[in-house]
Each structure stands twice: as structure tokens, then as C-alpha cells.
């Protein structure tokens, strides 16, 4: 698909439903043309308020989104929802069932809902969720809601993607509050106690408030705890108002501007880092593109890369993959130090071959991140597979 | 699923114990030698998961065992039947469910069935009616394709033209809020029949089974359904002494994939839920439970079904006492059975006649009070008249040619059947305990537990068919080339006649008094908001004032919430 062409972009900007849906498929599958399309949409990003909703399975995320849709559509907003469901670790298949729980508003003309399978990706989102949000942002939807898989405390990926982070807590958490405390609770701008009509709801709300009070207060926005009964329709208006307030306080487009990188998504930082790397230059590695969490670099194999067998030296392949790994992991703005890496070689490489190494993030928490790099000769022809782990330091890259 | 191995291998009871023991050991050794190690290792299980032994023999069963576990027909625990005479006294009610096209079409078919031996009337409304809509608000191509289009008392009057309301037992497939029953009451009033003389059953009153397994009948939210059903029961106790206001349905759940044991367990757990709800409202358990009836699927798993019904009767006699009843009428487990459509195949459709026969026999030996046999062509389309005739004839043959009614509980005392009855009882009790732990049936349905258990069983059964472990003739074994001419044509109502039916309905609506209709619907809405009012009384009043089926359902959906099924994959 020639996704980056003006006609395709114009159709997306005009919110033509079929074009938009097929563009999402292109970026979701990282199909041919996806990068060009995203590049063409870049000037149109940053208008949408991205609202992330996370919480354990059964906490009532989809029902909550249904209530929010009602309120937003009633005031004339054009709303998009990206709902991520888990995939089966055995077969990769998935049943995507969130949208049907969002109720009657799913059929509204100003509402666009897209279900994504996590496709084995950890952290509550699929690997390409952020790109899907970009397409919907460019199309002029505002807000764009992102519903995570909801498998628990590891879902911090939404923290970077969303401008307003809502964590949903069903009543009667008990011990789970302790687990929450260590995980998602830390990212919440708004904590919402769902199923507010259940007897434990009030106590849960009080417990969460106590917990917030114990935390060191950071300057700026102070997280709040709200109670909601989506079934009875109570608590929706105060939640909508709180979301508006947070938007006013924190702004939109967080995913586009990781701290320390004014260019937006880390792309310009990556480009600077790549230019600074003298080994890369000596080896002849070409910088293709990179942003926080992903990178692509290429290399044309020449005489200087060959070993005593006349094949490309394994160290060259390692260096190529390691370059993509380093750029992807450092694109967030803080220094990521490689602490472990492995490579498997699948095929011999000869002079004249052109190789492409693509890095993507497998998982990321506050201390560690794991990346996978695929080295290919032609699309789908795997040459080597590389995995690497970085330790995330607090140090920032110098501007 | 149980893992218990069969406890009742043959045990001797007489003086020749030693000889019998030795003979048994010899048989066992010969059996294992001759059948081969591979087949000994592989246990045979029935659909409920119970291991079936190759042979059952006499066990240590005393006179006391007989009195406690079996008893005589008409005596607790009713294992052998709920009446002293059973089918010798009165055979089962032959109740064929029919419904097609316009009220006039239905009336013609009804007269044909009565002439053919059907002893009671039943009415299946169109699926648009089941969903709570009037004919002028739905796509016309679906109208009357699965049932009769009834939206007003006038339509019901045309359906039941020539039927004596005083003498005929009428089965209405009428989910809450029971508009068809309200129309019947209005019709009786118009024909100057005292409503106290109306006899029959509100089939499809069991909203829990609809929420779990037949979503088409699920009209109001769970909480709203609970309220409206209790209102109907209370109203019927006061005004309709011969009406069976509640039929607790296991059929949908077994059709949806529950094992026979699960279906019985969920049905009994639902009955317990309804009984507790009624007594919590101050009703007398003896009075309330006496008019509970039950409705089951009967599958082709012959012995398992017989044991299911015998075990169900025994558990109900015990459960009803626990629920506070003492009157024998409340302890009797009265049930209607319908042969299972899920067992029928599209391939080699005439084979279905054999399946229906085996299913019907299982129901009869299980001691049913009322029976519907499916038409063999149900797996192909809405049953044809020819198919329905064979279904009725099957019952006549079993009753009058084969004389299955001559002996009460003819399989009682069979070592296999008695042992299997005990095992099924244990299996049913286990599933019921799980529901109780979850907080009772209403809660277990609300949380999706029942739906998940049924989904799991359905999947397991499908896997058994896919792997060939469960043989289905014509599907995974003995497949044959289809013979031309085996196919039957679908019966569809005449679109021109249906268009006229809709047109007449529109005109009828237009000539009503708008003020009367608006006032009646307003009163209905107010009764729904007032917990101390009886909503069914307002439904009857609304029907009297000319409100249509669709208007009544829409009003209560607005007030009490739409019945949204919980979807579990």
C-alpha cells in the first residue's frame, strides 16, 4: 500500500471511515508503507487528548468508556477508542470483546472504535498501539481513549502514551491495594472506584485516598480518587469534569514529547546520537529512522566486512543489530546502558547484500527494558535475531 | 466431571455368596482378557462425565434401601414416579408446540393437530414477539417464519377460535411480562369465561434460563425480571387457581451445551431461587411450590436421561421440604420434556425419526407428565406439516402399539439404572453445591459462572464429536451421499397475506383511543416505579385498554432496564 501518498493522507484527515480503518490496519501490521504514512501524518499530530484507561480484568473499563462516550458525544466531541485485548500465548489468536460492552454509543457516527490484539506484547498495549493513536489523532478525533489489556500491575506502557491516565479499581481490593501501590497506582492521574453501588466501594475509596496521602507530593497535578456507578449512571459528570481539568493542567501530546526531546517522539535525539557514533560511521551503517522504542538501520556489505571465508563477519551483524538496539533504547531522553545481548545467525551474508536491522521494544519497566532486533536481507528473509537488555539510568542525554 | 469409578460392581447378597464372588471374579478375569488391555484402560463416560461399567449386578440393597431411595410411585421420594397410577392412569399430555404465520394459519394447524390426537394446546409466537416487538416495527421478511404473529387480544382470539377455554389446557410460550397471558385473560372476559377456570402453563417464565441460554426470550434486566415474575406469581395465586405460573426450564441450558446432570442441577437451583424469592415476599411455600412445573430437554443418551429424571424427582422431594413445603403436591416434580433438537442432524434427515423415538422413550421411562416430540426436519428448517404429523404419530405408536405405558417405572430395579440414578444424583448435587457457594442461581448467572460452566461443557462435547469419540451417525461416521429428494422445502408465510395482517394491525392501532392507551401505559410505568404495586396487574389493565404487546414490553424495558445477556466466549 502506498500509504504515504497525498490522497490517502487526505482521506484520513477527512475521517473517511474505510480509508481510516485500512490505514490503521497498515500501521498495526507494520505493512509496507506504514512508516511513510506515519511520517506524512506527523505534521497533523498533537491535537488529540489521549485518555488511558487501565485496571484489572472485570474492573469495568469498557462500561466506563461507554459512559464517557455518552457524555462526550452529547457535547459534540468526535471520539475514538483503541481497545487492546490479550492474545493467546499458544496460538496468537484473540477474542476482541471490549467494544460490545461499550453499549449503544458504539454506533454513533462521531465515534470510531478499533479493537487491537496485544499480539503477544507485554505491558498492556500492542506494539503498534501508539501508531494507531497517531492515525486517529491526525484524523481529528479528540479525545482518543486507550483501553489496556488489564492484566494488572505491569501496565505502565499507557503511562507514556496517554495524557490523562485513569486507573480503575473495583471495590474490595484488600491485599491487592498493596500490589497496586507498587504498580499502576503510581501512574494514575485519576483513580476511579468502579461499581460504586457495591457495599465496599466507599471503603475502597477511603483506602486509596489514605494511600495517596502517604505518598510524597510532587509539584503540579495531585491525583484524585472518584467513585462511579456506571450502571446507575452516577459519578460520570464529575469524572468528565476531572478529565477536563487534568487536560487543562497537563496539556495534550505527551507521547509526542518525551522529556529532553523537543522534536516530539525522540526521533531527532536518535538522529543526533547516530551522527555522534564514530564506530557506526566507520562501519558504513546508514541511519534509516528511529524514535523512542524503535529504530531501523541499514548496511550494504562490502569487501571490508568479509571474514576469511569470504562471508560477512559475524561481528558486523552484531554491530548492526546493536546499533538499532542502542538507538531505540536511548530515544526516550535518558541514558540506557546495555547490560546483556544475544544473537543467533540464520543465514550467511555475502558481498553486495543490503541488510536492514529493525529494533522494537518487547517490555519496559522503570529499571529495565528488553529489545528485539530482526536483521533481514529482504522483507521476511531473516538473517539474524538479536535480543538485548538495557538498564535505565536517571541521567539525561545532553542536548 | 466426576472421577469416581463405579462402586457397584456386582456384590452377592444371598447364601451362596462365596460361589457368586468366585463367579464374579471369573467373569471379571475373562472380560479383561477378552476385551483387551487397550479397551480396559479407556473408561467409557456418559455426557455428564460418569464412568460407565461394563456390567452391573446386585449390591447390598435392603428393604430399607428400597423405602428410602425408591419407595412406591406417588410416595416420597418419588423416584419411581410422582403419582400412584402414573401412565397407567393417565398417559402423558401430548403437547406439540406449534406456531406459524398469521393467527388464521395457526388456527388451521391447531385444528389439524387436535384431530390427530394432541390433547392440549400450545402456542409459539413469532420471534419478533419473543423479542418484545410489534409487527410494524420489524423487517417483514422475518414475520411469522418461526411462530405466529400475535400482538393483541384480537390476534389471540383468532388463534384460539373454536377452542373451549374452560376445558383446554393452554401452554403459552410467553416470557415475562406475560402479555399473552394478559391477552388470554382479556379474551376470557370477552367470552364470558370466568378467569378462575383458565388452565395451562406460562411456559418460558424462567428468566434465569433465558439470561443464561436463550437470549431471544430475555426481555428485561435481571433485577427487573425478578420483580415482574414475582408479581405474576402473586397475582396468579390470587386470581388464577388453575394456572401454572412458573415453568422452570432446563431445556435451554442443555441445548446450549450443559450436560444432562448440569441442566438438572441448574434447573433445581433456579427453582430453589424462585421459591426463596417467593417466601421472602411472604408467600406460603406449600401453595407456591405446588404449581411449579419443570421443562427439560431429553437427549438421545438413553439411560443417562432416564437416570437424570429419576434423580431429579428424588432431589426435588428433598429440596422442596428444605424450602418449607410439606404438602405432597409441592413435593411432586411435574415435568414436560421436549426431545432434543441439538441431537438432530441435517445429514440423512430421516435418521432423526429414530433419534426422536429413542429420546421420547427415555422421557417416558423417566416418568414425564407431558411430551413434545420434534419433527425430523427441524434441523433443515421450520418443521413442515408432514414432519409434525410423524412426530405426533411417534408418540401414538409408543403409547398404543408398543404399550410403554403398561408398567409404572419399568426400568426400576435394573441394577444399571438404579446405580446410574445414584451417580447422577451425586453429580447433580455437586453442581448444585457449586451454585450455592456462588450465592445462589441469580448471583451465579449475574456473575457468568453458569454461562462459563455451560460454555466449557459445550466445547468439550464439540471436541468429542470432532475427535470421533462421540459418534454422530451421518456426521462423523457412516456418512453417505445425499439422496436427491431427501430435502424438504421451507414453509414460509405468504408475504401478501402477512402484509395484509400488518396493514390491518396498523389500522386497528389507529382507531384506538389514544387517551386510554397513554393512560394505561403511564399507569404501567408508575407501577414499575412503585415497589409495592403489582406490575402484572397493570399489564392486564394495559391489555384491556388496547395497549399492544410491543408497547407494553417497551414501557417496561424503559422502566426496568433492557435484558442484556452476558456474553462469554
Amino acid at each position, binding site marked *: 500500500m502506498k500509504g504515504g501518498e497525498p490522497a490517502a493522507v487526505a482521506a484520513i484527515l477527512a475521517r473517511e471511515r*474505510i480509508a481510516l480503518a485500512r490505514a490503521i490496519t497498515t500501521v498495526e501490521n507494520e505493512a509496507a508503507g506504514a512508516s511513510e504514512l506515519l511520517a506524512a501524518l506527523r505534521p497533523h499530530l498533537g491535537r488529540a487528548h489521549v485518555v488511558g484507561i487501565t485496571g484489572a480484568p472485570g474492573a469495568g473499563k469498557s462500561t466506563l468508556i461507554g459512559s464517557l462516550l455518552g457524555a462526550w458525544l452529547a457535547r459534540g466531541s468526535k471520539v475514538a477508542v483503541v481497545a487492546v485485548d490479550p492474545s493467546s500465548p499458544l496460538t496468537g489468536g484473540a477474542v476482541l470483546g471490549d467494544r460490545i460492552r461499550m453499549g449503544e454509543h458504539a454506533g454513533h457516527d462521531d465515534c470510531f472504535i478499533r479493537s487491537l490484539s496485544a499480539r503477544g506484547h507485554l505491558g498492556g498495549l500492542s506494539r503498534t498501539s501508539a501508531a494507531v493513536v497517531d492515525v486517529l489523532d491526525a484524523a481529528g478525533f479528540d479525545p482518543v481513549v486507550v483501553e489496556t489489556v488489564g492484566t494488572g500491575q505491569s501496565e505502565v506502557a499507557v503511562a507514556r502514551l496517554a495524557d490523562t491516565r485513569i486507573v480503575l479499581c473495583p471495590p474490595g481490593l484488600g491485599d491487592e491495594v498493596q500490589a497496586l501501590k507498587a504498580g499502576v497506582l503510581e501512574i494514575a492521574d485519576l483513580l476511579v472506584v468502579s461499581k460504586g453501588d457495591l457495599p465496599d466501594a466507599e471503603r475502597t475509596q477511603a483506602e486509596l485516598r489514605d494511600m495517596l496521602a502517604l505518598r510524597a507530593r510532587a509539584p503540579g497535578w495531585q491525583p484524585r480518587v472518584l467513585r462511579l456507578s456506571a450502571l446507575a449512571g452516577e459519578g460520570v459528570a464529575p469524572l468528565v469534569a476531572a478529565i477536563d481539568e487534568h487536560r487543562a493542567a497537563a496539556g495534550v501530546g505527551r507521547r509526542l514529547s518525551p522529556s529532553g526531546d523537543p522534536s516530539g517522539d525522540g526521533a531527532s535525539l536518535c538522529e543526533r546520537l547516530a551522527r555522534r557514533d564514530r564506530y557506526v560511521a566507520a562501519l558504513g551503517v546508514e541511519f534509516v529512522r528511529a524514535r523512542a522504542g524503535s529504530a531501523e538501520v541499514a548496511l550494504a556489505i562490502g569487501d571490508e566486512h568479509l571474514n576469511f571465508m569470504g562471508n560477512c563477519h559475524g561481528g558486523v551483524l552484531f554491530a548492526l543489530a546493536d546499533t538499532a538496539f542502542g538507538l531505540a533504547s536511548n530515544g526516550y531522553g535518558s541514558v540506557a546502558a546495555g547490560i546483556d545481548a544475544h544473537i543467533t545467525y540464520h543465514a550467511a551474508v555475502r558481498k553486495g547484500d543490503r541488510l536492514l536491522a529493525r529494533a522494537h521494544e518487547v517490555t519496559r519497566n522503570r529499571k529495565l527494558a528488553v529489545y528485539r532486533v530482526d536483521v533481514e536481507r529482504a522483507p521476511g528473509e531473516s538473517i539474524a535475531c538479536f535480543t538485548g537488555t538495557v538498564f535505565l539510568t536517571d541521567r539525561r542525554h545532553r542536548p | 466431571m466426576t472421577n469416581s469409578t463405579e462402586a457397584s460392581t456386582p456384590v452377592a447378597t444371598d447364601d451362596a455368596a462365596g460361589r457368586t464372588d468366585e463367579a464374579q471374579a471369573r467373569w471379571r478375569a475373562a472380560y479383561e482378557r477378552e476385551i483387551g488391555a487397550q479397551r480396559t484402560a479407556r473408561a467409557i463416560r456418559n455426557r455428564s462425565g460418569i464412568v460407565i461399567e461394563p456390567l452391573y449386578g446386585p449390591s447390598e440393597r435392603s428393604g430399607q434401601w428400597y423405602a428410602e431411595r425408591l419407595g412406591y410411585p406417588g410416595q416420597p421420594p418419588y423416584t419411581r414416579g410422582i403419582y400412584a397410577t402414573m401412565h397407567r392412569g393417565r398417559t402423558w399430555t401430548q403437547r406439540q408446540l406449534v406456531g406459524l404465520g398469521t393467527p388464521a394459519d395457526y388456527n388451521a394447524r391447531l385444528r389439524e393437530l387436535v384431530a390427530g390426537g394432541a390433547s392440549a394446546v400450545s402456542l409459539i409466537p413469532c420471534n419478533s414477539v419473543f423479542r418484545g416487538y410489534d409487527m410494524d416495527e420489524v423487517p417483514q421478511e422475518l414475520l411469522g417464519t418461526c411462530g405466529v404473529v400475535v400482538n393483541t387480544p384480537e390476534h389471540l382470539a383468532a388463534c384460539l377460535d373454536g377452542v373451549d377455554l374452560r376445558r383446554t389446557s393452554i401452554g403459552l410460550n410467553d416470557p415475562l411480562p406475560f402479555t399473552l397471558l394478559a391477552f388470554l385473560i382479556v379474551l376470557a372476559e370477552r367470552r364470558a369465561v370466568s378467569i378462575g377456570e383458565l388452565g395451562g402453563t406460562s411456559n418460558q417464565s424462567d428468566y434465569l434460563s433465558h439470561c443464561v441460554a436463550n437470549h431471544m426470550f430475555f426481555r428485561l434486566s435481571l433485577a427487573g425480571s425478578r420483580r415482574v415474575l414475582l408479581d405474576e406469581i402473586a397475582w396468579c395465586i390470587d386470581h388464577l387457581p388453575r394456572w401454572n405460573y412458573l415453568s422452570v426450564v432446563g431445556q435451554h441450558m442443555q441445548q446450549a451445551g450443559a450436560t444432562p446432570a448440569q441442566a438438572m442441577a441448574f434447573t433445581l437451583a433456579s427453582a430453589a431461587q424462585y421459591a426463596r424469592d417467593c417466601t421472602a415476599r411472604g408467600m406460603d411455600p406449600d401453595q407456591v411450590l405446588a404449581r411449579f412445573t419443570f421443562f427439560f430437554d431429553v437427549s438421545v443418551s438413553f439411560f443417562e436421561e432416564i437416570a437424570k429424571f429419576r434423580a431429579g424427582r428424588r432431589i426435588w422431594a428433598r429440596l422442596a421440604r428444605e424450602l418449607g413445603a410439606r404438602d405432597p403436591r409441592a413435593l411432586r416434580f411435574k415435568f414436560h420434556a421436549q426431545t432434543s433438537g441439538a441431537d438432530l442432524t441435517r445429514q440423512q434427515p430421516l435418521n432423526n425419526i429414530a433419534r426422536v423415538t429413542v429420546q421420547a422413550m427415555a422421557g417416558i421411562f423417566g416418568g414425564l407428565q407431558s411430551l413434545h416430540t420434534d419433527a425430523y426436519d427441524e434441523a433443515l428448517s421450520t418443521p413442515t406439516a408432514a414432519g409434525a404429523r410423524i412426530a405426533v404419530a411417534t408418540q401414538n405408536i409408543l403409547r398404543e402399539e408398543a404399550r410403554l405405558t403398561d408398567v409404572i417405572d419399568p426400568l426400576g430395579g435394573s441394577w444399571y439404572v438404579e446405580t446410574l440414578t445414584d451417580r447422577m444424583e451425586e453429580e447433580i448435587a455437586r453442581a448444585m453445591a457449586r451454585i450455592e457457594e456462588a450465592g445462589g442461581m441469580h448471583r451465579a448467572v449475574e456473575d457468568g459462572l453458569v454461562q462459563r460452566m455451560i460454555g466449557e461443557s459445550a466445547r468439550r462435547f464439540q471436541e468429542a464429536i470432532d475427535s470421533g469419540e462421540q459418534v454422530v451417525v451421518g456426521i462423523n461416521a457412516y456418512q453417505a451421499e445425499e439422496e436427491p429428494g431427501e430435502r424438504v422445502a421451507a414453509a414460509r408465510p405468504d408475504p401478501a397475506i402477512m402484509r395484509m395482517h400488518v396493514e390491518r394491525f396498523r389500522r386497528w392501532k389507529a382507531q384506538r383511543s389514544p387517551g386510554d392507551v397513554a393512560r394505561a401505559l403511564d399507569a404501567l410505568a408508575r407501577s414499575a416505579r412503585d415497589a409495592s404495586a403489582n406490575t402484572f396487574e397493570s399489564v392486564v389493565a394495559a391489555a384491556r385498554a388496547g395497549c399492544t404487546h410491543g408497547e407494553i414490553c417497551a414501557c417496561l424495558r424503559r422502566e426496568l432496564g433492557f435484558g442484556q445477556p452476558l456474553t462469554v466466549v
Partner: protein
Amino acid sequence: MSIRPKVLITKIGFDGHDRGARVVAAGLRDAGMEVIYTPPWQQIGEVVKLAIEEDVDVIGLSSLATDHLLVPRLVDALRAAGAGDVPVIVGGVVPDEEVRALLEAGVARVFHPGTALAEIVAFIDSETGRVRAARFAATMREGDDDEQH
């Protein structure tokens, strides 16, 4: 990487029996597909919107009563919305002469009760491949046109 088929399993009309639809949805998931499963009684407009937004490869309708009689309306609505290339398959109890009518109306295939899951999986796989190849070819043609201008 081969892309997984994305399939909508749904029901239109009045019937609510979902045993078949659920077993098929679970089976397709286990075959590695991405499945969107809805409750019964979807309106035709809702199905069209969902199929477009989710960019599904195939729409599967389950019909146990007579709801298949509405399927031609759905096919027409898809065409009118510009999504006429999405194949529609029907599973359930459909009388023979109405199977013919459905195929003539544009339904890709009717599966009867008792069909092995593997057969359904294979058909969806091949339809997905066919439709994606056709769409890809169409975008390449459009691209060529653009370059000429």
C-alpha cells in the same frame, strides 16, 4: 510475516441461540485468528459500521431460526457503504432453496450444522488471502495512475 485473519462473528435478527456462534468464535481464536464476537440482535447498520472500523477480513453470521432471510439486506448495506468486497459467510440452519438465494445475493458460502471447524478455518484463510491480494492490487493500480498524472 503472514497476517492473521480478523473475523467478525455476529447475529442479526431476533434469534438469541449463540451456542454455535460461540463454539465457532472460540475455534477460530484457537486457530490463531483475531475474532470480534458480538451479542445477538445487531442492527444491520451497526454490523456495517463495526466491520468497516475494525477492517475485518470476513463477516460470519450465525442463524438458527430464520434470520438468514435478512442477510441480503446486510450484503446490500455493505456495498452501499463501499465495503462490498468484505466476504459474508453464513452458518446455521438454512433450507436448500434459500441457500441458493443467499449465494445469488452475494453471500460467499453457507455452512450447515455439522461442518468441521477445520473447513471453516480453511475457507476464511483463503477468503482473507483473496481479498487482501485484490485490495493490494487495487492500491498498486491507483498508485500507478497517480504517477502517470
